[in-house]
């Protein structure tokens, strides 16, 4: 581009047809939505018009507005940023706002039901309050003393980048929903689940944090229950590599601390000699 040239062509044309070059979608589709409360429920069929670009949440809200005003559903941002509209779509844990109808087979009914690892409240909404209790039990961020007299710190971008992956988490709890330790074995009392292992990893790898959560991880937080089946990683809408980047390093940290006495001694001494 040359300076002073106020006519710049767009980098390329905007596609005018729907993705994948597929034929135009059917004008309406059937959604089997879970209706019920704490004691049970059933799938109720609804048919609603569909149009280009629609996501599952659009269909649910359209049904709510036009056919079932009391249909309970959680949502906020509708842009994949808040993690409110978690549900199971055709049996898979998904954000309703990021699940496009063009990616589903609309010749069959689309089923939508609440996350099943948590107690049901009503319809598509489950009680996720357990997660908020768990978080409170994790040792909070504890920074080293400031680096500069004005109370600020100096950090390298590379050190910040290392934990940003974990801090992207939108707390949709889909990883908790799919984790078999919670879903099948209901070990909510002894295992904090992948979301909070990611949270712990973000704190442990935070460039400024000096707290030690290793003993908690081993005991109260039950990291040993995770047998790295990676289901959590596969459902994360933020594409956080939960198992490989967060859980496995934490497991190694626990092993180093508790099952490697020589390494542990070395660590203790090196920590003493090198103030952080």
């Amino acid at each position, binding site marked *: 581009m040359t*300076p002073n040239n106020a006519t710049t062509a767009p980098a390329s044309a905007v596609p005018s047809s729907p993705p994948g070059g597929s034929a135009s979608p059917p004008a309406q589709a059937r959604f089997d939505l879970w209706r019920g409360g704490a004691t049970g429920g059933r799938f109720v069929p609804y048919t609603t018009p569909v149009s280009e670009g629609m996501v599952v949440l659009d269909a649910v809200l359209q049904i709510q*507005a036009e056919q079932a005003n009391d249909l309970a559903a959680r949502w906020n*941002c*509708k842009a*994949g940023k*808040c993690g409110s509209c978690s549900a199971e779509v055709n049996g898979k844990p998904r954000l309703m706002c990021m699940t496009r109808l063009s990616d589903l087979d609309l010749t069959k009914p689309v089923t939508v039901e609440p996350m099943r690892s948590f107690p049901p409240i*009503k319809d598509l909404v489950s009680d996720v309050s357990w997660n908020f209790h768990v978080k409170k039990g994790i040792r909070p961020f504890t920074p080293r003393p400031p680096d500069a007299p004005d109370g600020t710190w100096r950090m390298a971008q590379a050190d910040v980048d290392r934990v940003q992956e974990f801090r992207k988490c939108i707390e949709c709890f889909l990883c908790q929903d799919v984790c078999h330790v919670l879903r099948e074995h209901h070990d909510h009392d002894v295992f904090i689940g992948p979301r909070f292992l990611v949270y712990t990893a973000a704190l442990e790898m935070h460039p400024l944090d000096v707290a030690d959560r290793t003993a908690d991880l081993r005991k109260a937080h039950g990291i040993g229950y995770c047998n790295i089946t990676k289901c959590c990683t596969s459902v994360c809408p933020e594409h956080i590599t939960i198992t490989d980047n967060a859980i496995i390093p934490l497991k190694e940290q626990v092993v180093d601390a508790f099952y490697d006495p020589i390494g542990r001694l070395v660590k203790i001494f090196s920590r003493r000699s090198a103030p952080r």
Partner: protein
Amino acid sequence: MAEYERSQHDVLIVGAGGAGLRAAIAAADAKVSVGLVCKSLLGKAHTVMAEGGIAAALANVDDRDNWRVHFADTMRGGQYLNNWRMAELHAKEAPDRVKELEAWGALFDRTADGRILQRNFGGHKYPRLAHVGDRTGLEMIRTLQDHAIHLGIDVFMECTVIALLKDGDRVAGALSYERDRGRFRLHTAKAVVLATGGIGKAFKITSNSWEYTGDGLALAYDAGAELIDMEFVQFHPTGMIWPPSVRGILVTEGVRGEGGILLNREGRRFMFDDIPENYRNQTADNEEEGWRYTQGDKSARRPPELLTRDHVARCIVREVREGRGSPHGGVFLDIAWIKRRLPNAAEHIKKKLPSMYHQFKELADIDITEQPMEVGPTTHYMMGGIRVDGDTQMSTVLGLFAAGEVAAGLHGANRLGGNSLSDLLVFGKRAGDYAAKFASTAAAPRLDPTAVDTAARQALEPFAASASGNGAISPFQIQHELQASMQDLVGIVRNEADMTRALGTLSQLNAQAAHVAVSGNREFNPGWHTALDIRHQLIVAEAVTRSAIERKESRGAQFREDFPEKGADYGRFNIVVRKGASGAMELSRRPIPPLPPELAQVIEEMK
């Protein structure tokens, strides 16, 4: 009085976005008991969607920056209708509030020497926004949330306040309902802080979620507080427009801060065509200079894409109206072009704008590193709101405080991008501090049992209407009609005839709302919730419309095609809305107090 779930706190905070959380932390730090009520789950409030950054004159990137420049920028952006005391405090205190976040664990992007990095944004003279890629809001709300949960604050999630309660002239608490079971909860409090955010859902196309129904504004109005500047609704220039289901979702100004340009269908960079006089000295003459500015050249001036949001939105509307829009009725926003200037541009874009990349890829099948985005204006932010004291954030009702978007004053006629997150922090803290101070010297309030029972009964009326079979009107239908009417008649381009029609529609909808009916029971019932929301929305929509009619000029976010110029007299007052003795809405004009000489001098120096 009927039986209610009850709770008692020194300070009750309504809303748990950035302002509510920051207020809760401040109040808890002052060792008073704190209750925090939020309409959604903790951490889901709209702050989570903020993208660009937090404006604070840290001067980490450009050492010419300081509070005086930030103050002058904010006043210029607000067309001098701002509460100058708030603009002063905001500019002075924002840097400390940002550093505090870092002490609580926030991780901002860094400069080469390891300090907090700052980026360019519209209307800010120097790079000023502390940021984390384009997900700054998430970093901020999570930091505040994770800090607050260890302070002994009682949090009531998915709980909606339906009425404020008073003891004589002072606030005494609130009545709320808990969504899961539909039960009422009676909160007694010596001080109440409203931090409920904005009103975006009064319009059809908006970046706001279902929550933004103006609750705090309507609650305060009903409690006798004054609202000001209600005509100033910010339409963000760049929302997604295609496909239809994503219409309105925000595209951060950060795209333009990183070098993104706006083009019409002819490929013309139309923002160079109309540069307002008061920004001419600060705006680049040509594309080359604009590009150098985005790349940190301190001798360059900013490209016209980074003019204030009101102006950019109007330029986009002009292009579309005059037939030069994009295929789906917007314009093109192109960041992909920077590959002609930067090596590894695609990686750079993904790094600086990750959630934009993700959003367009997943929702619109657009790869923004290769293709331009189609964008158009979307209702984004409410500059107006509850009139507060600049120092304490107390409203005109004793013991009732407000902070963040629900409060007015800082932004005047138009808010600069990035000034919202800093607003939440600076005035959230101040509201929490002063509410705690107020509560610690106030006597325990008495609740009026009749007022409580009346509020509860009114909240249940939609069920009675449903049972009686008289009203078959769905609350969603009323909401949709309200949104369509405000969008079409009180939008970016306004005139008296349209707005008078809008008042007629609102009056009809008000009558219908009395007969709104909901199905089902009280447990987690969105129909019932919407029936309660529309009461607030109708008040807010009327306040916006009446104020916009009253301001017979174009200034900031208000553009009147019947009065396209600025009127000198209109720069001297704010329009005040309050509930009259008869229950009807009353408007008045409140003169803006003169600037103290030292602030006037700052503005003069920065011209």
